[in-house]
């Protein structure tokens, strides 16, 4: 049924995750494909509700079991996971692939100490005594920069500050040296200085373990320094994909321009954003016909009506840089060079 195993470490092929609900079918992820090698970092960017978390949960096989409909292929190190048995995927979780969750307070069990939770994670995949696992947990806490780890190992999550909890969450995810690490909004809840520390920490750890890293965020600023490649999601689909240079210096999709324009900057008030994207994210049940972005797109009128009638394809524009937009390539580049870029730089 499936095509031969790919050579990439992680490859998604046309992944779809749909949730049947009373209101209709929610197409949270709708035809997503990408590749990621060991030692590389992919940033996934998009507004709230664009399907980032569902994608990462889908890779781990945690997308709410029976009710969700999943199709497509997920290849991890030569193994296909969508068709694999639940129990097999379970044995890969934690060790082969691990996840740092969006909200560390609600993502850690309130009744167990941080140490107990790391020890548990370690002992699932390592047949060692509690004492050995405890040493390892203290070790991990020290490595993610928690002071006095031999004391804090016995603290409960609610006794940690937000930044400490995020570090503890990272320590837990990294306790089994996962080969694929997915970080879902690892810094959203933190203030800017702590944000930078956590991002540095993740990069260091990634280099040390040579793992593949996916960083999910709605903030392009976060992925700017971290990522080799960036995937921009909109309404469950990839609308632009390229290297970090492609996305920051040669973006071709109107939505990416909007994200760049609404990027918070240290030298500006958060409310004073240059070019916020107007309107609200699309419904994932009644997706706008044609290009899902058309109700909010300032350039929809320039596509001779195709924007509302025909779904644009994700096409290569140059050297692996993919864009999903009806505007002709030359026109997109023209708009970027002559309208958007001067505006972003002029500020």
């Amino acid at each position, binding site marked *: 049924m499936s095509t031969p195993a790919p050579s990439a470490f992680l490859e998604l092929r046309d992944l779809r995750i749909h949730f049947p609900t009373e209101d209709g079918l929610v197409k949270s992820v709708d035809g997503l494909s990408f590749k990621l090698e060991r030692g590389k970092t992919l940033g996934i960017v998009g507004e709230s509700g664009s399907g980032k978390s569902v994608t990462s949960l889908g890779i781990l096989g*945690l997308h709410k079991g029976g009710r969700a409909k999943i199709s497509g292929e997920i290849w991890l190190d030569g193994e296909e996971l969508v068709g694999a048995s639940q129990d097999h995927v379970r044995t*890969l*979780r934690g060790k082969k692939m691990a*996840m740092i969750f969006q909200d560390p307070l609600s*993502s*850690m*069990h*309130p*009744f167990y100490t941080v140490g107990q939770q790391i020890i548990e*994670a370690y002992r699932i995949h390592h047949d060692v005594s509690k004492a050995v696992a405890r040493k390892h947990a203290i070790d991990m806490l020290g490595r993610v920069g928690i002071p006095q780890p031999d004391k804090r190992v016995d603290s409960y999550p609610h006794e940690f500050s937000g930044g400490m909890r995020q570090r503890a969450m990272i320590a837990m995810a990294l306790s089994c040296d996962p080969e694929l690490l997915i970080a879902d909004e690892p810094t959203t809840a933190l203030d800017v200085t702590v944000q930078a520390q956590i991002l540095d920490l993740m990069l260091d750890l990634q280099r040390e373990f040579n793992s593949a890293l996916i960083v999910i965020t709605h903030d392009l600023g976060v992925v700017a320094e971290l990522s080799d490649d960036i995937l921009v999601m909109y309404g469950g689909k990839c609308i632009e994909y390229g290297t970090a240079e492609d996305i920051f210096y040669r973006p071709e999709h109107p939505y990416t321009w909007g994200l760049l324009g609404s990027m918070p900057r240290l030298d500006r008030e958060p409310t004073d954003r240059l070019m916020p994207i107007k309107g609200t994210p699309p419904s994932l049940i009644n997706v706008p016909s044609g290009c899902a972005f058309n109700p909010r797109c300032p350039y929809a009128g320039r596509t001779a009506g195709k924007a509302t009638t025909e779904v644009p394809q994700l096409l290569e524009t140059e050297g692996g840089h993919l864009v999903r937009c009806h505007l002709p390539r030359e026109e997109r580049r023209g708009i970027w060079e002559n309208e958007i870029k001067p505006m972003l730089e002029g500020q």
Partner: protein
Amino acid sequence: MVAFIVRRVIAAVLMLVIVSVATFAIFFLIPRALGQTPEGMASRYVGRDATPEAIQGAVKRLHLDDPLIVQYGRFAKGIVAGQDYSLGPRKAECPAPCFGFSFNNNQPVWPTLLDRLPATMSLALGAAVVWLVAGVSIGVISALKRGTAVDRAAMTVALAGVSLPIYFTGLVSLSVFAYTLGIFPGGGSYTGLTEDPVMWFQALVLPWVTLAFLYAALYARLTRAGMLETMGEDYIRTARAKGLKERTVVTKHALRATLTPILTIFGLDLGLLLGGAVLTESTFSIPGIGKLVIDAIRGNDLPVVLGVTLFAAFFIVLANLIVDILYAVVDPRVRLS
């Protein structure tokens, strides 16, 4: 932790004082406020047909003409230190805790309560074991098999369980299993555990099941709802993301969080029942505290009603205390506040 426990114990003692004041007020202050005279109160001790002299004597002996504060002080002192009554020609000693004497048979209230306690305890504790095990297991299974036939069947039975009153289920079970099939003895056959353990057990099976059916239904619904909520929590997803087996996720992570609030409710329910399972005891004629208080209310036996009320309040406050302390042991977040 020690400071926490000390604080809770002090709060519990204060609570008991407040309850005793409130109870005293209900039984003595409100009748007076409604126009009852000390003589009217006294007539209930010596009988309605007594001569005015006898009634006056009773007022004096019982100090019913004292200010209410003084009366409360004497009442409280009796509970703590005991007191002596002079009932007509004879003097009656009433050692602590003294709740006075029954109007109807002149027996001291406290020993009567103690005498009735084993039956109530047998009933309540036995039923508690049954309903806790049955209710929680059914709730967990229902939640895990949400939407299936098993879930629907269990929840239909549970709905029946919470809707049907005990005297109905009790009488039906008596008429079927005792009077028609003859498997279990009928009402009024309670025997003390030390007297005849086999009979004790046989006589309690139907009351246990009847009482437990109601509570098990309640607990199944609570557990199911709690379990469904917990299974959707982020930390359950984290537990799965670690690669834990689903069985461990359910038992170690989900159940632990679900059972904590249920533990609270369980403690309170049990405390409430230890103060008398009124409906079950009357339906099956079990000579427990619930039966005692029903009979006392029918017979206008004020000291007994007062004694049972305080006794029941004591159990509830005690259960509250134990639950609070247990909760702090189980949920580390509680210790902070």
